């Protein structure tokens, strides 16, 4: 025996050299039609296959080379017979080869020609050959010799339709030959484990594993024999093969051959012989990985079921589900120590099977999950990561099959299986569920369903008892919470009563989520509620409606409470934004006090909570923008709110920000389409105030030499002037515009300002607009005509 692969390479090279040398002489003999020399050198060539020094892999390489040479010899034999040499004589002649191994290879080769010549029935020649091969009992050499026999006889089996077809029993003859060869090969293969010293067992098992396909190949050949119908498969082929499998009592062989049987024979046959096949399982060695065998069977049958609806009746007819389910139960019972992975793999395969075969039988699916729960119970959370993955696969299967979470929600055992997952995996599963909902655009339409769904995804909704999320990656957390947010948008019912119930259910659950989650979950809930408000808004409120009915007012109350929950976190900017959204919705519902209340809340937050100057800027612009769109307010309320907004604007930290906020406020006094909300004077006041601030900013900039001036601000204000001028605000005169332009020109030319290309471009485009309006002619052109402008010469 060898240790190094290097030595092995050397032996292989030597074997190849010997083989090539003899094949050279063999060829020469063939070319000169010298039969004796041909036999002599081919026998010598084949002697190389007598080596014991090669692993199966390397031996196979050598064998393939000999194999190729033998094809040439075979053709030569054919030519010989055509030239008048008797095939029977040839068959005798090759038996004179000195060594048995070369002799048998030659015999098989001639045998192949013999069958082709049809001078004897194929079955007789084959029977002779398969018997003769008993002469080789060395496992590796025997296995290769027999696979040679199998190969050369492959297209000469006397099966139906073959040109070697014999009498009535012709198929049986073909089957018998292959079965016999298979039996002998399996024996050689199994026996191999007992040969050689015990310490090399591992190496031997590896070599045996490499050899497995030589044995399995026979089953493939059996499956290809034309004329093996179901009866013959049931009565002869399967029992004979299983007999070998069971009796050999060898783990490797049993596992592999079961796999082969499952893969090489057709699905219809498996279905019709399920009892027999499943019945063999408990008879296998306890160490055989039955769960994989059964899983592969179920996987295969699932594929078959999925291939066409026409085959489903076959499954029902043989009660495949019950049989598989029982078989699994028995296996699990017989192996109390089966690891969780095994258990879950089995149930997972069975679930996939039933989903494909009995898509209408949710009770079956639930049964499978229930059986799985029973097996898992009492063992605590699953710790094995592979088993965990398998549970995820198990739970994902119904989602994939039905593309509908609603169906999974009907499986009472579904959440119970979830319980056995660890916290991170529960979260993964929740994400899978949400993704399925999003992908399929599933509407969740009742509060009960929402309730059930939240039960499934609670891993994302709140911290689980005793464990914190500290370890969770910040990005992952965000991703998860964003997916929850998207999910909330999928809750919808046309009926306002039910929708309100849904909203209340969601609220109940997300409130448990704690300060880290609320900023993600409150906004979608707010928008969901506002959607309901919009839906109700069109409808006349029933003046006689009882208190229980859903009204916008009621929802706004709820909204107030919902947003209120953000106060403790605190995320004042977000809360402020949401209040403003609500205010706008209340505006559209013509609910002035409600809208005013929301604004007040927003203002309180602005005054008390928002201290960061950037946040202030964002918020003030939001406030101005929203306020501008409000039409519900009476003069008094409106005055209060606009007054405050201008006040906030003027108090921003930096002058330029003040300036911009203040000129933005000008729009609060001039709302298009609302003539009672047009106050030209106050517009002008705002703009003037903005100008003063810009001036102050300019002076500060000049004082701090080097910093760019605020000429930009002036141009921005000029644009506001032009806007209101165009909208017909009588307070904005040509003269005021003209003087503003001059101011800007002066500023730009003054020595103390460094040139600012952006400002120049902005001014130029502003003035181009003026020019453009002039050229329009008509009323507009006339209006703009008096505005004069001389560009600065560079």
């Amino acid at each position: 025996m060898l240790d190094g692969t290097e030595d092995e390479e050397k032996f292989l090279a030597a074997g190849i050299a010997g083989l090539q040398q003899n094949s050279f002489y063999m060829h020469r003999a063939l070319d000169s039609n010298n039969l004796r020399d041909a036999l002599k050198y081919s026998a010598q060539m084949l002697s190389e296959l007598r080596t014991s020094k090669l692993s199966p892999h390397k031996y196979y390489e050598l064998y393939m080379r000999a194999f190729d040479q033998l094809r040439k010899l075979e053709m030569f034999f054919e030519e010989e017979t055509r030239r008048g040499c008797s095939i029977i004589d040839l068959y005798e002649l090759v038996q004179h080869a000195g060594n048995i191994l070369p002799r048998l290879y030659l015999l098989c080769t001639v045998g192949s020609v013999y069958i082709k010549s049809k001078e004897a029935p194929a079955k007789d020649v084959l029977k002779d050959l398969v018997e003769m091969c008993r002469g080789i009992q060395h496992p590796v050499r025997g296995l290769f010799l027999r696979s040679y026999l199998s190969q050369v006889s492959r297209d000469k089996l006397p099966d139906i339709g073959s040109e070697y077809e014999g009498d009535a029993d012709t198929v049986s003859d073909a089957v018998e030959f292959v079965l016999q060869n298979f039996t002998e090969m399996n024996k050689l293969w199994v026996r191999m484990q007992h040969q050689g010293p015990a310490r090399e067992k591992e190496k031997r098992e590896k070599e045996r594993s490499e050899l497995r396909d030589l044995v399995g190949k026979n089953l493939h050949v059996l499956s290809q024999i034309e004329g093996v119908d179901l009866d013959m498969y049931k009565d002869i082929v399967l029992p004979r093969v299983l007999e070998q499998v069971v009796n050999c009592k060898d783990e490797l062989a049993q596992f592999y051959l079961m796999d082969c049987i499952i893969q090489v024979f057709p699905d219809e046959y498996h279905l019709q012989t399920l009892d027999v096949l499943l019945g063999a399982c408990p008879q296998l060695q306890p160490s055989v990985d039955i769960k994989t065998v059964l899983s592969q069977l179920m996987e295969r049958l699932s594929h078959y079921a999925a291939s066409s609806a026409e085959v489903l009746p076959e499954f029902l007819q043989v009660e495949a589900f019950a049989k598989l389910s029982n078989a699994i139960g028995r296996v699990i019972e017989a192996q109390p120590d089966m690891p969780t992975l095994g258990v879950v793999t089995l149930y997972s395969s069975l679930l996939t099977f039933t989903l494909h075969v009995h898509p209408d039988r949710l009770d079956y699916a639930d049964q499978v999950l229930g059986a799985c729960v029973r097996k898992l119970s009492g063992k605590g959370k699953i710790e094995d990561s592979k088993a965990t993955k398998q549970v995820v696969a198990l739970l994902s299967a119904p989602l994939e099959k039905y593309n509908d979470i609603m169906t999974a929600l009907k499986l009472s055992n579904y959440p119970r299986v979830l319980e056995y997952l660890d916290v991170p995996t529960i979260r993964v599963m929740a994400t899978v569920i949400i993704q399925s909902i999003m992908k399929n655009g599933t509407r969740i339409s009742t509060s009960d369903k929402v309730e059930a769904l939240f039960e499934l995804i609670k891993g994302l909704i709140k911290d689980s008892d005793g464990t914190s999320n500290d370890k969770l990656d910040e990005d992952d957390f965000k991703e998860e919470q964003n997916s929850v947010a998207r999910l909330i948008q999928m809750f919808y019912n046309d009926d306002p009563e039910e929708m309100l119930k849904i909203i209340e259910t969601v609220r109940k659950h997300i409130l448990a989520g704690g300060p880290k989650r609320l900023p993600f979950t409150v906004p979608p809930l707010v928008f969901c509620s506002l959607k309901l408000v919009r839906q109700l808004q069109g409808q006349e409120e029933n003046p006689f409606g009882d208190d229980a009915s859903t009204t916008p007012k009621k929802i706004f109350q709820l909204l107030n409470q919902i947003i209120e929950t953000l106060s403790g976190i605190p995320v004042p900017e977000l809360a402020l934004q949401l209040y403003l959204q609500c205010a706008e919705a209340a505006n559209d519902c013509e609910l002035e006090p409600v809208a005013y209340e929301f604004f007040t809340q927003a203002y309180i937050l602005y005054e008390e909570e928002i201290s960061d100057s950037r946040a202030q800027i964002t918020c003030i612009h939001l406030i101005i923008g929203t306020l501008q769109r409000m039409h519900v307010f009476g003069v008094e309320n409106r005055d209060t709110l606009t007054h405050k907004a201008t006040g906030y604007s003027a108090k921003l930290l930096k002058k330029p920000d003040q300036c911009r906020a203040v000129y933005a406020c000008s729009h609060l006094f001039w709302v298009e389409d609302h003539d009672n909300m047009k106050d030209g004077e106050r517009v002008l006041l705002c703009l003037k105030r903005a100008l003063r601030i810009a001036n102050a900013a300019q002076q500060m900039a000049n004082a701090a030499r080097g910093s760019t001036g605020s000429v930009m601000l002036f141009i921005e204000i000029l644009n506001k002037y032009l806007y209101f001028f165009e909208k017909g605000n009588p307070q904005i005169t040509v003269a005021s515009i003209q003087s503003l332009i001059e101011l800007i020109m002066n500023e730009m030319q003054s020595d103390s300002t460094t040139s600012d290309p952006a400002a120049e471009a902005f001014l130029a485009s502003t003035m181009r607009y003026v020019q453009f309006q002039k050229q329009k002619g008509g009323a507009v052109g006339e209006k703009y005509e008096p505005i004069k402008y001389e560009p600065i010469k560079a």
Partner: protein
Amino acid sequence: MPSRRRTLLKVIILGDSGVGKTSLMNQYVNKKFSNQYKATIGADFLTKEVQFEDRLFTLQIWDTAGQERFQSLGVAFYRGADCCVLVYDVNSMKSFENLNNWRDEFLIQASPSDPENFPFVVIGNKIDIDGGNSRVVSEKKARAWCASKGNIPYFETSAKEGVNVEEAFQCIAKDALKSGEEEELYLPDTIDVGNSSQQRSTGCEC
């Protein structure tokens, strides 16, 4: 080689399991097709006599298992191939994408003398399914891939209905023949007879 002309052409069929390798071979050699799925184990061949320009050849067509677990002995049988057929299922993108791997693996394992010009033929099978409606690999895409790999001849077949199978194998035989003849030209079947090392112990007495 004085008189014996080469008449055996070796062809290897590769591709993912289930694409129809066995069915193509059975359709071509035996004119038979079965809807049943039966996995192939290991590798073996069927032969078919073909005539080409008045000469008879034997095509030795090797069918293989697409699954690794049924290819336990390796791929020594690639050796000496004259043509390699790469099969995919036009209804499976994965099987098409894997053609690259199959081609690479073949070139590495078979190490033909001139890999650049080794003849491949690509077959897109199962075009009959669903009247072509479930097809996911377009002919254009497949042809583009073939073009990028040195203008590999391309055929679309249905092993089930026998469409284009004969034509594909005609081309396979022709390419195999060409490559076989070239090989003969460059690699005359001579070996170094002088360098013999007969003094090696062989195995037991069987």
